[in-house]
C-alpha cells in the first residue's frame, strides 16, 4: 500500500483586494511505504502548504489526499502521521519530559505507555540531560530533538518533516541526518521538505521537485541525474597554442595546466569530434570523462524550466 497518495491536491489563498495566490496546483503524488521521499523547492514553492494539507492543518481548495488509504481529514489518518513543523515551537514553560507526556495524553496513551515512550525517545534522541529543564532556554538543535521526539510519540509509521535541517549548525544537521537514516532502517516512511540539496542527496530514495506550486518532476535521484549528461571533460596534451585556440571554439570552456589542456564539451557528440581532431592534429588524448549533473544543477534547471512553463504564476506573484 502507498503511504501517501494525493489526487489533484490544490490550495488557493484568497485575500480581499489582492490576486488569489495559487499555493499548490493539482498535486498528484505517490510515496511508497518505507520510502524516504525528499520534497524540494525554493521558499514559497508550496512545500509547507503540501505538508499542512497532509497533516490537516488547512483544507484543500480542491482534490484530496490519503495516508495508508485513510483520508487525511480523518483522525484515523492523523494517528498514522508524526509531524515535525519547520522550526517547531512547544510550550516554553514545559520540560521535554512534560512535553512528551502531554502529547502522549493527546494520543490517548495511558500513564505506563507514556513513561515507556519517554524512556525510548529520551534514549534515542539523547534527551536525558535536558529532561527536566524548561524548553524556554533551548537552542535550535535541542528544540529540533524535542520536535522529533514529539513527532515519534505513538510510533507512527509515517513521519512528515518540514525542513528538518533548517537553521541547524553542521553538528546538529549531522545528528538529524543520522537520525533520519536510523528511521529509514527502522522501516519508517519519511516525507520531508528541504532546500538543502546536499542533505537530500544523502538520505533520499526519491525526490519530487516543486516549482511555484506545481510538481515538475519526481523520481530516484540517480535516475533523474542519470538521464542528463552535463558535459564531457576532454583532457589533451601535445597541442600547440594555435591548435588549442582553434579547438577551444567548440568547447564550453577550457583552461591549460602545464602541458595539459582541459576542454569541457557540452555533449558527447562535440567531445567525440574534439577527440578526432586532437588525434588528427598530432595531439594526445589524456582523459575522457562524461560529467553527471549534480542535484543542485538539476534543481536549478528544473526551476528555470518551471518558471518558463508557468508564466501566469509569476504574473500573479507580481500582482500580489
Amino acid at each position, binding site marked *: 500500500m502507498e503511504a501517501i497518495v494525493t489526487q489533484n491536491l490544490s490550495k488557493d489563498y484568497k485575500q480581499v483586494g489582492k490576486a488569489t495566490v495559487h499555493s499548490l496546483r493539482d498535486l498528484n503524488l505517490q510515496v511508497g511505504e518505507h520510502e524516504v521521499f525528499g520534497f524540494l523547492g525554493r521558499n514559497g514553492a508550496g512545500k509547507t502548504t503540501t505538508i*499542512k494539507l497532509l*497533516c*490537516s*492543518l*488547512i*483544507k484543500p481548495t480542491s482534490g484530496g489526499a490519503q495516508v495508508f488509504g485513510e483520508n487525511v481529514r480523518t*483522525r*484515523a489518518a*492523523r*494517528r498514522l*502521521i508524526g*509531524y515535525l*513543523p519547520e*522550526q*517547531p*515551537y*512547544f*510550550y516554553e*514553560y*514545559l520540560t521535554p519530559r512534560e512535553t512528551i507526556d*502531554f*502529547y502522549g*495524553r*493527546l*494520543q*490517548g496513551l495511558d500513564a505506563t505507555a507514556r513513561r515507556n515512550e519517554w524512556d525510548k525517545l529520551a534514549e534515542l534522541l539523547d534527551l536525558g540531560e535536558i529532561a527536566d529543564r524548561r524548553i524556554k532556554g533551548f537552542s535550535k538543535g535541542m528544540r529540533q530533538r524535542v*520536535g522529533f521526539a*514529539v*513527532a515519534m510519540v505513538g510510533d507512527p509509521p509515517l513521519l512528515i518533516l518540514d525542513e528538518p535541517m533548517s537553521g541547524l549548525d553542521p553538528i546538529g544537521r549531522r545528528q538529524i541526518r543520522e537520525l533520519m537514516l536510523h528511521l529509514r532502517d527502522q522501516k519508517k516512511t519519511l516525507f520531508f521538505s528541504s532546500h538543502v540539496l546536499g542533505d537530500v542527496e544523502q538520505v533520499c530514495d526519491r525526490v519530487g521537485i516543486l516549482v511555484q506550486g506545481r510538481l515538475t518532476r519526481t523520481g530516484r535521484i540517480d535516475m533523474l541525474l542519470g538521464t542528463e549528461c552535463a558535459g564531457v571533460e576532454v583532457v589533451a596534451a601535445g597541442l600547440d597554442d594555435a591548435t588549442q585556440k582553434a579547438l577551444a571554439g567548440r568547447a564550453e570552456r577550457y583552461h591549460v595546466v602545464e602541458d595539459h589542456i582541459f576542454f569541457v564539451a557540452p555533449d558527447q557528440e562535440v567531445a567525440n569530434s574534439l577527440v578526432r581532431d586532437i588525434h588528427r592534429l598530432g595531439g594526445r588524448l589524456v582523459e575522457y570523462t562524461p560529467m553527471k549533473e549534480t542535484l543542485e544543477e538539476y534543481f536549478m534547471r528544473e526551476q528555470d524550466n518551471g518558471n518558463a512553463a508557468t508564466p501566469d504564476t509569476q504574473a500573479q506573484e507580481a500582482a500580489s
Partner: protein
Amino acid sequence: MRIIAVAQNTFREAIRDKVLYVLLFFAAVSIFGSKALGWISIGQDIKIVKDISLASMSVFGVLIAIFVGTSLVYKEIDKRTLYTIISQPMHRFEFILGKYLGLMAILAVVVTVMTGVAAFYVMLLGGEVDRLFFLAALLTFWKLLLITAFAILMSALTSPILGALIVFSFYVFGHATGIFLDLPPHFDDTVAKHILEGIYYLIPNLANFDIRAEAANEVAVSGAYILWTLAYGALYTAFLLLLAILAFEEKDV
C-alpha cells in the same frame, strides 16, 4: 481525557505566568485599599469593603478573561504550538473545550482566592459575611465564564488586540443594554431603532449577574432569581462556545 490534558496544560501555563500574580496583587491592593474609602463614608466601611471587593473581583476577573482569553487560540497559531497539537488524532472541538476549561479553572481559583481574602478582611473589620456575599461572588464568576466564552470565540476569529477591544465593548454594553431599548422618541419607526433593538436581544444583559449592591446592603435576593440567572448565563455561554467551536473547525492554521 484529551480535553482534560489541554485544560491542565492551559492552567499550568497561566499558573507559571507572572501576569496572573500581578493582577492578583492589584486585586488584593484594591480590596485592602477599600478601607480608605470606608473612612470617608463614616459608618459605612463594611458595606464599602464588600462592594469594592465584589467590584474588583469582577474587574480583575474580566481583565484576566479578556487578556488571556482573546490570545488563547491566536497565540497558539502565532507561535505555531497549535501545529503539533491539532495534527494529533484529536477533534478540534476538544482543543477549544480544553482551553476553555483551563481558563475556567484559573478564574475559579482567582475568584475563590479573592472571595476568601475579602471575606477574611470583612470579618477582621468586625463585619459579617453572609450567604448573599458568596452568591454575589458566584454570579460574578458565572459572568466571567460567559465573557471567557466570548473571548475564546474572538480568539478563533481575530487578533488579540482587536479581540480585546471587541470583548471589552461587549462587557461595557452588556452592562448597559438598557440604552438600546430606552431610545428617545425621534428614533420611533426608524431602521436604527430596529437594529438597536436587535442588539439589545443579542447581547446578554450582564447587569443581571450583578447583585453587588444587594450583597453590600444585605437586601434579600430570591433563590428563583439566582437560578434563573445561572441558567441564563449557562445558555449564553453554551451558545458562544458552540460558535467558537464552529469557527475553529473550519479554520486554516
